[in-house]
């Protein structure tokens, strides 16, 4: 028995491919039971989005990356739509908002064709120059335009650009994206369990759990040992920062986290922590794994 376990090879390509499917199956059963339980079994929103991402990655691995990345574009659209429904926009901001929506297919296409150089500047340079112009072009008065630009730019950055980073990470390797998503989910689960004991306890318990997860997934993610430990430390810190930021934003937007109605914070509440952690983890892994220097992943 012991001999069997020690000879079990986690790094085999079959396990690497089949595990996301098993995770998808488990989460599908969990969501289905929650739906059939008529409210008795409550599933947090972020688990629903973890399921959605698992589905996207399954499509990427077993069908093609192109439909998968466009499914991510749809998730980005849903999140941005909800955000724009919540913020206090003026009539004059319509063109700027439209510009933000147009940025989604534009950016996703850049991920699809693996044009990293343009992807990384598309929103912070081009969109952030064009959208203020679009906001002010029909605005005779100008009052409130700065606030509108800030609101639109933040939505674009968070729900399009950060999600773009997740898409790009998935482009390089599904398991790297899963490392991020599973770690954030684990952090959130631990912190939900430790709500009564305070944030610090949740963080201190989440930290070794995520480091352990990162090391466990090492054969599939191919991240070297030290960076794997570092990512395991980095993600709980980012989750803590993200939760703090998102709580404040939700409060400002009037989102009632205890009673999330459709169109009133459901997507934002579920997705925000994943998106908050995505860019930094992406850039660290890209640097460590030297993705810029050789063609790997779905582009290989």
């Amino acid at each position, binding site marked *: 028995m012991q001999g069997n376990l020690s000879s079990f090879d986690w790094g085999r390509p079959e396990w690497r491919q089949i595990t996301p499917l098993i995770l998808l199956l488990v989460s599908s059963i969990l969501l289905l039971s929650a739906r059939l339980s008529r409210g008795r079994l409550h599933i947090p929103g972020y688990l629903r989005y973890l399921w959605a991402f698992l589905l996207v990655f399954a499509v990427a691995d077993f069908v093609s990356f192109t439909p998968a990345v466009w499914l991510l574009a749809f998730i980005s659209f849903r999140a941005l739509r909800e955000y*724009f*429904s919540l913020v*206090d926009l003026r*009539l004059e901001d319509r063109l700027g908002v439209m510009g933000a929506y147009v940025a989604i297919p534009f950016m996703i296409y850049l991920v699809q064709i693996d044009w990293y150089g343009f992807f990384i500047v598309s929103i912070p340079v081009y969109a952030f120059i064009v959208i203020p112009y679009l906001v002010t072009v029909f605005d005779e008065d100008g009052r409130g335009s700065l*606030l509108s630009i800030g609101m639109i730019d933040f939505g674009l950055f968070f729900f399009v650009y950060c999600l773009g980073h997740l898409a790009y990470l998935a482009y390089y390797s599904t398991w790297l994206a899963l490392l991020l998503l599973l770690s954030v989910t684990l952090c959130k689960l631990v912190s939900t369990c430790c709500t009564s004991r305070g944030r610090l306890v949740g963080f201190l318990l989440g930290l070794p759990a995520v480091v352990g997860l990162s090391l466990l997934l090492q054969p599939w993610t191919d991240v070297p040992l030290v960076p794997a430990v570092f990512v395991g430390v980095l993600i709980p810190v980012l989750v803590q920062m993200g939760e703090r930021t998102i709580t404040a934003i939700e409060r400002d937007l*009037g989102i009632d986290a205890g009673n999330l*109605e*459709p*169109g009133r914070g459901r997507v934002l509440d579920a997705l925000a922590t994943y998106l908050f952690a995505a860019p930094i983890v992406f850039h660290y892994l890209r640097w460590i794994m030297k993705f810029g220097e050789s063609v790997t992943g779905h582009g290989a």
Partner: protein
Amino acid sequence: MAPELHRLSRLIFHLLLLRPLLHLIFGLNVRGTENLPARGPFILAANHNSHLDILMLCSSLPLHMLGDVHIVAARDYFERHKKLFTFLDWLFRPVWVDRGAGGGDVLKRMVEIVDAGGILIVFPEGTRGEAGVMGRFHSGVGRLVGDRPLTPLLPAFILGSERALPREAALPLPVWQHVSIGPPQIVQGSGGDITRDLQQSVAALGRSETAKRQRRREERRQAFVVAVLGIDGSGKSTLARLLAEDYSVDQSTCLIGDELMLFADGAQRRAQPLLKEKLRRWLSAQAKDARSLAFYKIPKISELLLRDALLGEARRWYGPDLVFMDGSPLLNMTAWSTLYRNELMSPEFCARAIEILSGGGQPNDPLYREFPELKAIKRLGLARLHRPDAVIFLDVAPGVSMKRIFDRGEKLQVHENEEKLSRLREAYLLVVRALNENLNLPAFVLDGERDQLTIRDEARCLIDEIRTGIGEATS
């Protein structure tokens, strides 16, 4: 085509095209479907901001009801586009209204639909109007329900369509749509009464829906400033404090008297001290100890200027709803000037002095020659004193006020004698006249020899009246 086939094709169109598209592009959240009767007849009346409204309301209804739905729409608007008109005529089977023509036929047709068990969707505003602003409801729906009082009338509010596709926009913007359906109304009275009640119900639904939306920070409201004037011993400090305490039950108030106090929730609250306040109190003590009017003047003017600056500071740092001032630097200076130059007393003179001291006035006003202090204040850039929003003058006979001052047992100030107080009282009355007649600023004279609580209640009534008037004028 047979009517059943029409009905089926409409349902398929709704089910396979319209609803999925609306959910995909906009997202639709419906609340209050439990308020819908199981079947028609009923009338659904909603606010109207966009062409999307009708699509959203139809998509909010259970599918089996769609066969009985009729809408009320403007023929003159849609008839301009022939194909669209034919399509809408097939999809919604509207009761077409010719705006500008009489509504008798329309009402008759609506009654027929209701009698046949149909579901009528109406937009009583008649037109899409300004985005996010609910217009006045037309009385047609009231008349219809007045004719058929047993037909359930359901108010509905649509939030989001005014952003997605307002009248000014050509392209729709993907944002969530929230439809809130209220419980059936119990209607009574004339058509006008029913319409008014319906508008109130829709507005109430709208308030609860829009309350969940983020609002940009409202423009900082300026505190309403009430100055309580009176000669020494008239009880103005007591009245100002009583008013500040009384209003603080539901608002935050600030009292600027011998000391600066803040009140909230019916009690005094602590606040970060201000440096100007400490300096002012020291100057006030100096003025009270002055041996003659000449020595009184400089510290008193300085104290008044600082008191005025304090009003700005209190507004900036404490943000109260109401400020009560024991005296008003602007009006006190004006009134006091007459103590020195009695012969110049007139309402016009007072009005000109107030204009100059509050930052206006003519550059070559002869008043500057009479009062070099005024010129000095202007040159130093100090003539920007605040005008209060309302003034209350407590009128007390100088004899009575002298008795009150003696009863306090404090040291008498240099001007506290019957003759000077009598002149000061006249000067204040003149200022009140100037405010009312020349400057259009509400100023009231109250008899200060009555019970303090009676005076407070009377003052409160007057202040409330002015504030309500200002609120109505602004809205």
